[in-house]
């Protein structure tokens, strides 16, 4: 600030100099006044200037300086004291303000300078952010491209469209010169050029799959930069001097077989396709990371889309196959139904047709029998008659079989004479057997009831069939038929483990064994026999239409027989000791027990009600012979509990000594070494039947040998140890009722 020497002599030293000074002062004042105005104007315009107070100060300073200089103008001429005072005030003020401003500026100027540096910094930052924004925008755009690409790819399930779209979209997004897809051939040893972007129909280039560059790409799931000179990249003639960078990526091809229910597909068995992407040549463009990422993502999406397409194809194929099979099955079913209907019709017709001549033969043979015949002729006619009767029965069987399959067959229950049924069957078979010179013997067990309840006719048919077969399969020798009542323990045959007969009080199981001396059965065929039996049993319960006529199991037995045995709650099987050693057919059926010999339809169930009538046997004198002390005591306890008068003995001698007619029942443990002997002796000693005590064997053995033995020595029953109270009660009741154990 120039010091204004404003107080000076009145004389103008130099007119010119003062004139200039005058003018300069004027202009300075002007400037000094206009600067704040400019400042104010511009600061008002900008809203950001932070130091307004400084500005005010500065403005004041300038204004005052200006004022000073202005006032100076008056001092060039003679001026009054007022002017001088004003001048002085102005100068003083100016001095104050300017000093204050100077002090202020010391603080402010560094700040202002730093603002400048900050501005530079911010400018740099802004530039950086701009760059990054640019990058993000590019990425976002790429992302959009990927989404769009994916959408395009996934919008179709057609494999060709998928691949074509992929290449097209990739080419567009990344502005590629060329894009190609190599698929593995069927053999898996080569890669074949399948699709390209620019060429419409690529020629069938192939490259072997085990090239190092291909292995390199396949071994990583990232996009790999490869040389433009590698065989997979040399697709078109070079357009420019410098080929663009090439990138290759693997595309996993997932097969349906890779999708197991429980695991994810294993990577080691994957097949891959190769996607090759080429940047335009001479473009100096480089593959950016985000572009590579885009390529990888697309490759994965393509893989997924392809696998979906494959699954769809597969399922369509499966569905078509199923439809075909359905049609075929339907046809087969209809054919089967037609066949069955045809067979049934045939059966019906044949039956009728067969019966008519049969009846004629039978009728005429009967008539012939009435006429005069020589003994030989008579024999012949009788045989004819018997055989035709048999044949008629067989024909009826055939009809019955069809009815059986309809489920309309029911058993014809009634009381009949069991013994005579057997005898009649034998009589029917004898003539045929005698023709073959076979001896037929029948042995009915003594304990076989004379009367039983069941379907007599069917039993006879079954017997006839079984015996008839025995006769048929034996060329010579004998046929022996035995019939007896099956006891509980022997009912379970090891060969028929799934046969669980449950004997009850009103029924018994008739067991018939037909032994022949025919060709026997090969032991190797045994398992086959019995599985077939099992099958037939299950078939019998469902009405299987396919079981067919005639000889079913083992080519021996009429299905009828099997069915009837089943209906009668029984079982039939074969035993043989081997080829050439004959064969024994055994069957068991359930028959009802009947007492009366009248033709009553109801099975006699008297036993059941009688069993529990007597709960105590007061005064019944019982002797127990057992060498086992504990057993003895227990048996005695049982009998005492039931009210009996019990004597126990532990040896045969003692028993024989003490036995008398007063005793009603003697329980003998036949496992003792002299058990049977004692029984015999007891019988001998007390011979009068009605007075003799009943002898019952107590044994832990339930086998046939024991039972036979007991029967042979004349014992009245066999009881299995250990005995329960109920069992003892039943035994005593039965004994007293029947004098025998049934």
């Amino acid at each position, binding site marked *: 600030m120039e010091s204004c020497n404003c107080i000076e002599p009145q004389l103008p030293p130099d007119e010119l100099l003062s004139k200039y000074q005058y003018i300069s002062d004027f202009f300075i004042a002007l400037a000094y006044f206009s600067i704040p105005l400019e400042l104010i104007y511009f600061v008002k315009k900008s809203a950001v200037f932070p130091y307004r107070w400084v500005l005010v100060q500065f403005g004041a300073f300038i204004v005052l300086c200006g004022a000073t200089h202005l006032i100076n103008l008056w001092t060039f001429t003679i001026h009054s004291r007022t002017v001088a005072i004003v001048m002085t005030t102005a100068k003083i003020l100016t001095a104050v303000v300017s000093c204050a401003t100077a002090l202020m500026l010391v603080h402010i100027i560094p700040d202002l300078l730093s603002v400048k540096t900050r501005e530079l910094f911010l400018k740099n930052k802004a530039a950086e952010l701009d760059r990054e924004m640019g990058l993000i925008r590019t990425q976002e755009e790429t992302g959009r491209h990927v989404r769009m690409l994916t959408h395009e790819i996934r919008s179709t399930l057609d494999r060709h469209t998928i691949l074509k779209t992929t290449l097209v979209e990739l080419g567009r997004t990344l502005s590629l010169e060329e894009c190609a897809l190599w698929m593995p051939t069927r053999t898996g040893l080569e890669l074949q050029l399948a699709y390209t972007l620019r060429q419409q129909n690529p020629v069938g280039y192939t490259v072997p799959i085990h090239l190092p560059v291909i292995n390199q790409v396949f071994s990583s799931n990232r996009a790999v930069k490869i040389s433009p000179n590698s065989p997979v990249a040399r697709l078109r003639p070079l357009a420019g001097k410098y080929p663009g960078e090439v990138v290759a990526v693997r595309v996993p091809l997932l097969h349906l077989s890779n999708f197991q229910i429980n695991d994810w597909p294993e990577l080691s068995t994957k097949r891959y396709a190769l996607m090759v992407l080429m940047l335009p040549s001479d473009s100096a463009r480089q593959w950016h990371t985000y572009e590579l990422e885009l390529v990888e993502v697309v490759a994965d999406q393509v893989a997924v889309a392809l696998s979906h397409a494959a699954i769809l194809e597969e399922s369509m194929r499966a569905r078509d196959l199923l439809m075909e099979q359905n049609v075929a099955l339907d046809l087969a079913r209809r054919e089967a139904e037609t066949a069955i209907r045809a067979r049934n019709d045939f059966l019906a017709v044949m039956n009728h047709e067969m019966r008519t001549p049969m009846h004629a033969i039978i009728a005429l043979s009967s008539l012939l029998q009435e006429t005069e015949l020589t003994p030989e002729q008579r024999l012949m006619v009788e045989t004819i008659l018997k055989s035709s009767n048999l044949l008629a029965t067989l024909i009826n069987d055939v009809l019955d079989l069809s009815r059986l399959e309809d489920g309309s067959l029911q058993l014809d229950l009634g009381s009949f004479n069991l013994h005579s049924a057997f005898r009649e069957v034998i009589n029917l078979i004898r003539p045929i057997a005698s023709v073959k010179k076979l001896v037929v013997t029948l042995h009915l067990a003594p304990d076989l009831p004379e009367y039983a309840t069941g379907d007599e006719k069917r039993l006879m048919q079954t017997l006839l069939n079984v015996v008839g077969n025995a006769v048929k399969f034996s060329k010579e020798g004998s046929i022996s038929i035995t019939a007896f009542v099956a006891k509980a323990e022997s009912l379970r045959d090891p060969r028929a483990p799934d046969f669980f007969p449950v004997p009850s009080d009103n029924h018994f199981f008739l067991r018939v064994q037909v032994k022949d001396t025919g060709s026997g059965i090969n032991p190797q065929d045994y398992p086959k026999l019995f599985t077939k039996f099992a099958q037939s049993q299950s078939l019998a319960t469902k009405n299987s239409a396919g079981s067919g006529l005639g000889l079913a199991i083992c080519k021996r037995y009429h299905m009828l027989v099997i069915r009837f045995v089943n209906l009668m709650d029984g079982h039939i099987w074969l035993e043989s000791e081997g080829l050439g050693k004959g064969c024994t057919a055994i069957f068991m059926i359930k028959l009802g027990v009947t007492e009366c010999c009248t033709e009553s339809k109801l099975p006699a169930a008297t036993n059941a009600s009688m069993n529990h009538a007597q709960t105590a046997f007061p005064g019944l004198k019982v002797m127990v012979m057992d060498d*086992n002390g504990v057993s003895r005591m*227990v*048996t005695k306890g049982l009998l005492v509990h039931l009210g009996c008068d019990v004597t126990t003995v532990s040896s045969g001698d003692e028993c024989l000594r003490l036995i008398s007619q007063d005793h009603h029942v003697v329980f003998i443990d036949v496992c003792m070494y002299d058990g049977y002997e004692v029984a015999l002796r007891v019988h001998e000693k007390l011979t009068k039947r009605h007075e003799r005590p009943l002898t019952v064997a107590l044994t832990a053995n339930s086998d046939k040998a024991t039972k036979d033995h007991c029967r042979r020595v004349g014992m009245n029953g066999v009881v299995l*140890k250990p005995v329960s109270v109920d069992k003892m009660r039943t035994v005593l009741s039965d004994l007293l009722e029947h004098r025998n154990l049934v």
Partner: protein
Amino acid sequence: MDVIQMQRTWVEYTKSLYREGYLDSQFAQLQLLQDESNPDFVVEVVSLFFEDSERLLNDLTKVIDQQQGVDFKKVDAHVHQLKGSSSSIGAQRVKNACVAFRSFCDEQNIEGSLRCLHQVKQEYYLVKNKLENLFSLEQKIVAAGGSVPVDELGFL
């Protein structure tokens, strides 16, 4: 312990014996036979069984331990007796062991027989122990003024 508690324990114990196969339904029959006219039937029978079995087991041990050769007929006879007794009172496991023993006797298998003898002895001592426990419990119940709750066994 009061009577009710002891009775309950008795029922549980008896049921467990049946469940574990020590006793079978034959023992249940014996329990049925016990009544006012015959209050100690079961104990008597079982005591007799114990005596018999100990004797038989001693005899068996003697016969099997013989150096000159084992008389399997005798062994069989003894085992038969033991089997009979055990099945009469319903000592199921002893009886089963006897059955196995007999089959080895049939085969004249000394090793097997020895093993079976051990088995039988083991089963016998087990069931003896169990039954003695049972009887002492019964005695306690009777001494405390209660009665043995045979009816509560349920399956008789």
